């Protein structure tokens, strides 16, 4: 009889632990998903601006075809990126391509003075800032989630219930991961 009670007790503790762990991991995973959705919105906004930008520049500099194709390719690559890491890589690629497009635009004073172009330039700078803001939040949530998944005791819940580490939004040679950690208990 005693053994039965001990068994029931152990099972109860294990179940309780699993429930608490599961809830915690789900909460952290939802934060990661929200963080990713924030990045996705900004990436979407950025890709939406590109066709307009290309058309605007083309109106003044129709023969610079190489750079238009490059920007369009980079945009497609970003749209097709499946994972955070590849999206980050594609995003860097798009940044570089847009940079070259702006360098080309330097040679056309009329273009540089056009209202539409200035507006697009401002909007693009704004989305870039917002992507990096969203990235800070997303990477911080990934850091918390991964730490939970990798560390004892949640490790024992995470593996059987199918919680896997998530990717950071960062290109390979990128070290801009969150570095500051705070003791906020004072």
């Amino acid at each position, binding site marked *: 009889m005693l053994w039965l009670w001990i068994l029931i007790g152990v099972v109860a503790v294990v179940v309780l632990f699993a429930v608490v762990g599961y809830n915690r991991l789900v*909460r952290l995973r939802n*934060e990661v998903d*929200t*963080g990713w959705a*924030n990045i996705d919105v*900004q990436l979407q906004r950025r890709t939406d601006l590109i066709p307009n930008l290309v058309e605007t520049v083309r109106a003044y500099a129709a023969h610079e075809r190489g750079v238009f194709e490059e920007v369009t390719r980079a945009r497609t690559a970003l749209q097709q990126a499946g994972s955070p890491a590849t999206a980050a890589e594609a995003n860097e690629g798009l940044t570089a391509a847009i940079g070259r497009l702006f360098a080309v635009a330097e040679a056309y004073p009329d273009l540089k003075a056009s209202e539409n172009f200035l507006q697009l330039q401002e909007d693009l700078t*704004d989305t870039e*800032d*917002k992507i990096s*803001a*969203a990235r*800070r*939040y997303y990477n*911080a*949530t990934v850091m*918390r989630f991964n730490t939970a998944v990798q560390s004892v005791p949640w490790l024992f819940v995470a593996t059987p219930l199918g919680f896997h580490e998530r990717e950071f939004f960062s290109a390979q040679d990128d070290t801009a991961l*969150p*570095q*500051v950690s*705070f*003791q*906020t*208990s*004072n």
Partner: protein
Amino acid sequence: MTLQEQIRANRLRSTIVVFGFVLLLLVLAGLIGFAFDISLGVVALVGAAAYGIFALVRSRSMTARLTGAREVAPEAVRPLRRLVENVSIAAGLPVTPEVRIVDDAAPNAYAAGLRPEKSYVGVTTGLLATMPQRELEAVLAHEVSHIRNRDTYLMTMALVFAGVIALIADIGFRSIAYGGRSRRGGVLVLVLAIAGFLLAPYAALLLRMSLSRRREFLADAGAAEILNDPEAMALALRRLEQDPTTIKYADASTAHLWVESPTDRLDSERSGVLALSRLFNTHPPIESRIEALEEAGGFRLPEQLPADEAFGLQHGLG
């Protein structure tokens, strides 16, 4: 503590504060009821509750009026609006708070609102005219983390309850002074009642102040984390400290809201530094806030602040 845990701890603390205040209210009403008349106690309680609900509903516009913050169209302050958007995104807020402008030469900022979706950040024109972008962002991040941590909620609650308690204690005093009603229970109850009416507002004030001081450290740390730049926050604090101007609307009732306490200088100018007055400070000293940041971020502030152009001048604001 993770962020979510902090937020939950804050919610729990809000609940405790609310319960503490309700208890204090009940005790006060009980005292009134005991010392004079049960019906007077009930009237005081109902009146206080009505006042409290009214104050909560009106808190947003009331704070705006007390601090002199005016609504501005987002287009009119586009560059500033963008900074607030970026900071809110980095903080993981679902909605970007509104921006309001306080016409005041003293650099300062605050956040208000019961819920994150209904919150706003108030910024003085003086802040825009003194802070370079990096430090302005840090101040905005500080305010946004107040909103994210639900500090604005907690402090609004505390403020409203403190007001209610002052009101009910006042009713008690007036009843003693002018009350021709039958006084039951003799001298002891009367003395107890007077002591209660005298001390309750201070108890409420102390509770409010101690709450708000802890919040400042948390919000500084939050800002550093949001921007991944603890030095920016420390620089902003140092610049605020060095600025000699004081908020026009400096007032005990809104002192706890601002990023830098607006009343410290007034107090020390008027009455010298009293040991007791430290207890009633809404903010920890700036120096200890800077030290906390230096320790967490592992840096030392330079002697000289960077001489970058102020954000407001750069963008024609403020």
